[in-house]
């Protein structure tokens, strides 16, 4: 009785293509909501400031900038956090790990806006400062997830792998990383969503993105502009979260 249920659950977890219409329903709703909002905004009566900022081309540029900020910073975060997390979970680095984790915990309590503004004050404003700030802010949770994921791998499994003669690199590649993958991938998903939110702060330091619509809306007191920015950021966050979920499902090793 339980076996088929477990089998079905596993299938549901690893074969999103089998029920693709349901997997695609959520992004379809999100995209439809975004399009409906844009159509509603473009057809409502706008004054000159609003129509300039809400021109479809301009909104599309800002959305694309936001996506760029999110993706570039997430990729950089992964390129730094995953190797660092792997290195810190090696036997020879065991003593450094608690120190780094404690530092990561303290660093994470620094507010995102503080990190972003501090870097801008020190380095000047622009896209790349925003990227550096986003990476600085996002590395810590991703690093912690990698370390936690690798730590919760059953030591008897790594012992067994070493016992059958696997060299340490192979143990890492064939046993530890696949087993830690769900936690690491969940961390990547969290990082992506975190980056969408933090990227909206980038507009304070001329980093571009949809935050520009929010700040323009507030400073010029144009509610439609403000609302468009907020709605699109929220929808983008939901879409990226869905994307992260799909990636986590596709990349997770089968059998877990």
């Amino acid at each position, binding site marked *: 009785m339980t076996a088929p249920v477990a089998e079905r659950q596993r299938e549901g977890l690893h074969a999103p293509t089998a029920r693709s219409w349901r997997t695609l329903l959520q992004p379809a709703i999100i995209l439809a909501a975004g399009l409906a909002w844009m159509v509603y905004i473009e057809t409502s009566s706008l004054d000159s400031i609003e129509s300039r900022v809400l021109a479809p081309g301009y909104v599309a540029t800002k959305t694309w900038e936001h996506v760029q900020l999110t993706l570039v910073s997430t990729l950089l975060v992964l390129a730094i956090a995953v190797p660092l997390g792997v290195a810190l979970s090696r036997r020879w680095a065991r003593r450094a790990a608690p120190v780094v984790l404690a530092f990561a915990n*303290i660093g*994470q*309590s*620094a*507010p*995102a*806006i*503080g*990190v972003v*503004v*501090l870097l*801008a*004050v*020190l380095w000047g*404003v622009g896209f790349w400062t925003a990227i550096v700030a986003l990476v600085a802010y996002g590395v810590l949770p991703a690093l912690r997830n990698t370390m936690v994921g690798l730590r919760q791998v059953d030591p008897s499994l790594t012992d067994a792998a070493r016992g059958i003669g696997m060299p340490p690199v192979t143990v890492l590649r064939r046993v530890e990383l696949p087993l830690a993958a769900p936690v690491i991938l969940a961390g990547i998903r969290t990082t992506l*969503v975190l980056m*969408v*939110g*933090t990227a*909206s*702060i980038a507009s*304070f*330091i001329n980093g571009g993105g949809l*935050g520009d619509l*929010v700040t323009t*809306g*507030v400073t010029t007191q144009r*509610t439609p502009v*403000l*609302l468009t*920015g*907020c*709605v699109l*950021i*929220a929808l983008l*966050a*939901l879409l990226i*979260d869905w994307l992260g979920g799909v990636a986590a499902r596709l990349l997770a090793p089968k059998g877990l």
Partner: protein
Amino acid sequence: MNFWEYLHSRRELLLFETWQHASMVLQCVLAALILGVALGVAVYRSPRWSALAAGSAGVLFTIPSLALLGLLITPLGLGVAPSVVALTLYALLPIVRNTIVGLAGVDRTLVDAARGIGMSRAATLARVEFPLAWPVILTGVRVAAQLALGIGAIAAYVSGPGLGEQIFSGLGRLGGANSVNMTLAGTLGIVLLALLFDGCFLLVGRLTTPRGIRD
């Protein structure tokens, strides 16, 4: 002016803003604790309602704070109101989730035993389930407080109170005198508050966890 001189010359303002920040976060987290626990208790017995509550909390969680604060300007205007509402909403999410998880994680046999010796449903909840779930709920409150401290800084953008003002004044004076000092003071102040809050929660956890499940 170096950083120490800055801190010294503005100590009254900085202390006031730190106090405002801490008090805003504390009040919002307390409000969220009451609302969140009430919501969690209301839904935890039904798997479907639990899933709905946790799911909608998750969706709300993905909405960036700047967007939520911006959306709240329209109905609530600028100032304290949108900041408090946004902070309470964000603080609500970890608390609701952890209340549901904590209450669902209580061993069913203990609940059955309590019912078996004649305790009413309310008494079972108050004297058995809630104390056992409390450490998990408190963890949620701790996460909520850390989150609210960080989002509280962005609240200064909608003219909310607190240390965020230092950060935004630093941004407004970009390149000018004291801009680094202001930003640094705001950021480090919030980090210090976060450490302070964490310490308090550790203490509260020690004092309020039932003796039998203390580790």
